């Protein structure tokens, strides 16, 4: 299944957030969307999954999602968006409840998702009892439980401290290497993008346009090797130069309120 974004633009009233985005998300890849804050990355992600209606252009699906996918376009949120009144298990089971599955199948799917994210022993804990990293694991487990065809991740690690971010990123990558779910990964962190993505789409400052689309040819599993590090460092510099200028201008911008 592929997602084709054709001429998408979006305005919030007078404010143009996105302009003329053409982009295809390919089956089985991680596409990172990177750009300065306020460039419309999250808006674009919202449009991709049908949570926001674009002011211009269309988003098309090419091909069918796998039959066992209960929710083909599934989000992982920056602020986790967990229900504080439900336990870990209850939060993960939430998206299954309206599908008319048997209790046994629901339990089996939930257990499976909890096990894959290392949450089995925390199933009866409430979100407030968990660290930020654990909460985002719950967010990921809740996304996996519906067997998504496309994972839409909105800065999933930015609410976490640097160490937790590193740990969770490695865990997520290990998970992804096993399942190869197509994913769009919004971030403002270049290292994250270079560690995870097959391709990096760089957006310009507002109104966000597609500035550059860079493929990273090194397989994710090999990126920590010394040989790969040099190439990635070079790529990092190259991309950083592109982003830096945009970020500098974006930072000094005053929003007309």
């Amino acid at each position: 299944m592929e997602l084709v974004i054709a001429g998408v633009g979006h305005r919030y009233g007078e404010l143009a957030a996105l302009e003329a985005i053409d982009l295809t998300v390919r089956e089985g890849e991680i596409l990172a969307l990177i750009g300065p804050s306020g460039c419309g990355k999250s808006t674009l992600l919202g449009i991709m999954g049908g949570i926001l209606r674009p002011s211009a252009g269309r988003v098309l699906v090419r091909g069918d999602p796998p039959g066992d996918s209960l929710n083909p376009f599934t989000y992982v949120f920056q602020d986790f968006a967990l229900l504080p009144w439900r336990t870990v298990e209850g939060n993960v089971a939430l998206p299954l409840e309206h599908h008319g599955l048997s209790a046994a199948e629901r339990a089996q799917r939930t257990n499976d998702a909890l096990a894959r994210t290392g949450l089995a022993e925390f199933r009866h804990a409430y979100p407030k009892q968990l660290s930020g990293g654990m909460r985002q694991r719950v967010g990921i487990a809740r996304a996996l439980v519906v067997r998504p065809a496309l994972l839409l991740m909105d800065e999933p690690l930015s609410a976490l401290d640097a160490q937790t971010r590193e740990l969770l990123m490695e865990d997520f990558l290990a998970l992804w290497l096993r399942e190869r779910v197509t994913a769009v990964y919004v971030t403002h962190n270049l290292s994250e993008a270079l560690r995870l993505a097959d391709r990096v789409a760089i957006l310009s400052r507002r109104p966000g346009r597609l500035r550059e689309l860079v493929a990273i040819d090194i397989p994710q599993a090999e990126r920590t090797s010394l040989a790969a590090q040099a190439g990635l460092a070079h790529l990092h510099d190259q991309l950083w130069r592109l982003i830096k200028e945009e970020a500098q201008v974006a930072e000094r911008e005053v929003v007309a309120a």
Partner: protein
Amino acid sequence: MSAAPPDAAMPSREVAFRGGGFVLAPRRGVAALAFVALIALWEIAVRFGWISPIFLPSPSSVVAALNELAANGTLWLHLGQSLFRIFAGWTIGTVAGLGVGFAMGIWSVSRAIGLPAVSALFPIPKIALLPLLILWLGIGEPSKVATIALGVFFPTVIATFSAIDNVPRNLIRMGQSFNLPAPSILRKIVLPGALPGMLAGFRITASIALILLVAAEMIGAEHGIGAFILAAGNLMQTDQLLAGVTMLSVLGLAIGAMLTRIERRLLRWR
């Protein structure tokens, strides 16, 4: 600054501590002690004749009056009537208020209609409507119950739709992103998310109901704590009067304790 080792010959002194105070710690027993001391002082003042028992009867005589009322059954008659009125009025007002509040929290049209109506009607002291309600519903129970229900209704509406406004939108978006049907979003996300605000509203409406109960009973009732206090006052039976006031205090405390229990149960996740 150089990183030279400290000179032992230099005079040294401790850094003064400046961070104390402004922290409240629980002091168990202090409240009970102060309470007992106050009651004792009161009792002594009356016993020694510093205060006339007509104006302020001693605590022991209030307790004696309460005992007597309990023994001859008048206490239960008045309390029963009052409890029925407050329960019926509060329940009717709350159920209606929750319904309207939910509608105003969810639908733009109901909000547009309801908000100005609530703003216009909420500030009216509901006891001012009692004469009208008596004309409509008669002097019996319905007019008193309706006064309490009206007084409870508006704050419940306001508490409910503000509580729904405070449910984080990102949780609702999350529900939509998983294709949860609208009734599920209401039941699993909006309702539990609004519950803390709704329960806080119950606390306010419970005390409003108590105030209106007494006021309504003082205007036109044969029995009930309010009527009893008024009658005692007219006959200068101040010990009976204070016995009635004590009953009200106990009733208020009991309702508060009940709500605390319900909150603990329903909001364990907080």
